[in-house]
């Protein structure tokens, strides 16, 4: 799929692509940080774009997470295929875990096991690259990248009561 990028001087950037149904979608990323999404469907006037909606920076982040969540896990899987010895694993947080409701940094997972927690999946939300201050909640699923031993180490750590 080709995404065409066009510079709009003084405004921002425009990204365009067509989907399988032949609709042309264009997204304008304004310099101020917000976005507008347009759709071109009129065959009589192929150049006219109808504005669908406008998104603030935060709303656009939320939408990107919704659309990007399944893909992100896929791309981690791709990464682990490319580097021998590296794998990805998912570690659920039991409600009994001593780290439930505590910041991610408290686990010292990276120091103790060498594996990295690259995302937290909470319900249908994915927090990519969580910082050490991010709170772990019961029933979260941690996406971990590291050696098999490292991932097992993180699982043990999190399972501790």
């Amino acid at each position, binding site marked *: 799929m080709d995404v065409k990028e066009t510079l709009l*001087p003084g*405004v921002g950037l425009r990204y365009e692509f067509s989907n399988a149904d032949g609709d042309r979608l264009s997204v304008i990323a304004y310099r101020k940080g917000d976005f507008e999404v*347009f759709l071109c469907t009129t065959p009589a006037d192929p150049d006219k774009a109808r*504005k669908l909606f406008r998104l603030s920076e935060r709303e656009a982040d939320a939408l990107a997470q919704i659309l990007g969540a399944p893909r992100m896990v896929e791309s981690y899987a791709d990464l682990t295929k490319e580097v021998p010895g590296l794998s990805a694993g998912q570690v659920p947080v039991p409600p009994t875990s001593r780290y439930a409701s505590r910041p991610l940094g408290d686990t010292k997972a990276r120091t103790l096991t060498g594996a990295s927690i690259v995302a937290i999946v909470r319900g249908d939300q994915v927090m990519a690259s969580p910082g050490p201050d991010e709170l772990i909640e019961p029933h979260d699923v941690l996406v971990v990248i590291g050696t098999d031993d490292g991932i097992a180490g993180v699982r043990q750590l999190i399972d501790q009561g």
Partner: protein
Amino acid sequence: MAISAPLLLELGAILLVLTVLGSAARRFGLSPIPLYLLTGLFLGTGGVAPVDAAADFVQTGASIGVVLLLLTLGLEFSIGEFATSLRRHLPSAGVDLVLNATPGALAGWLLGLDAVGILALAGITYISSSGIIARLLGDLDRLGNRETPAVLSVLVLEDFAMAAYLPLLTVLASGGTVLQALVWMAVALAALGLAFTVSFRWGHHVGRVLGHPEDEQLLLRVLGLTLILAAIAEELHASAAVGAFLVGLTLTGPVADRARSVLTPLRDLFAAIFFVAIGLTIDPADLLPMLPVALALAAVTALTKVITGAYAARREGAARPGQRRAGTALIARGEFSLVIIGLASTSIGTLSAVATPYVFILAIAGPVLARFTR
């Protein structure tokens, strides 16, 4: 310090009139600029309500208004945008220049203006209003359309052409020879190149020196530097406007974004005062005899802009309706044409008598025509 009550009163009254007119214009989706001009016309020489106390301030404010208009314009654009526009739309820029400057020059010649007047009128009919048009495209939700990059590119290239044109006009208007004018044009272009280099290589350093976490400090630094460089440029006859434009271009990145947001309210105020000042200097009695000429010129150059826009849009691969939309979008003339009138009209009265109603007509007709071209 003695506070002048009449000055405050008159200034306050002018601003209130402007806001009433401006909001009325915005309600109909029009640019408020023509109404600001009209306000000045009613207040000034031969008008109904002379403002003696505020006149001095308005004239002073007008020169700050020009500097701020050009500074914020420079802040809008980056080198990358200029380079991209130039690569894709150099032929469009050529078509634009030939089609739209020629009618102005011819009209100037027919009216018996001297060389400076002809050059000024050519510039006035050439330059579309990037302020009015950028806003119009947003209001009409056309930013997603295929023809829009063509319109924006033409505007960018016109604005950059002004960096060469304004010194030429300023030197000639102040009585310099053609040779001197060409030298200063070359100097201005070299300065433009320098501004690009500085912005490209050391833009972050400039940003670090000028950028200050507090908005107040940022405002004072950027404005102070701009006024000094504008003064130097003016002293060298290269036009204060060009100096301010170059400062705006040199600033990039987050500092430019913040500078834009702190300067915009100030620009809005002083630009409005500038438009009023243009109206103030004109005696309405001089305008009437020139109205038919202005109308005819407006009709011709509206048509030539439509052709320009259609040509540029076709280069982007837009179909007929898109080409028409691009063409009508470009019709509006505005702030830049008024800057040119301000520069040249001190020497020639006929010029402002023709050009002011001309800008007035197209600043209203442009957005209206663009709106009705679907």
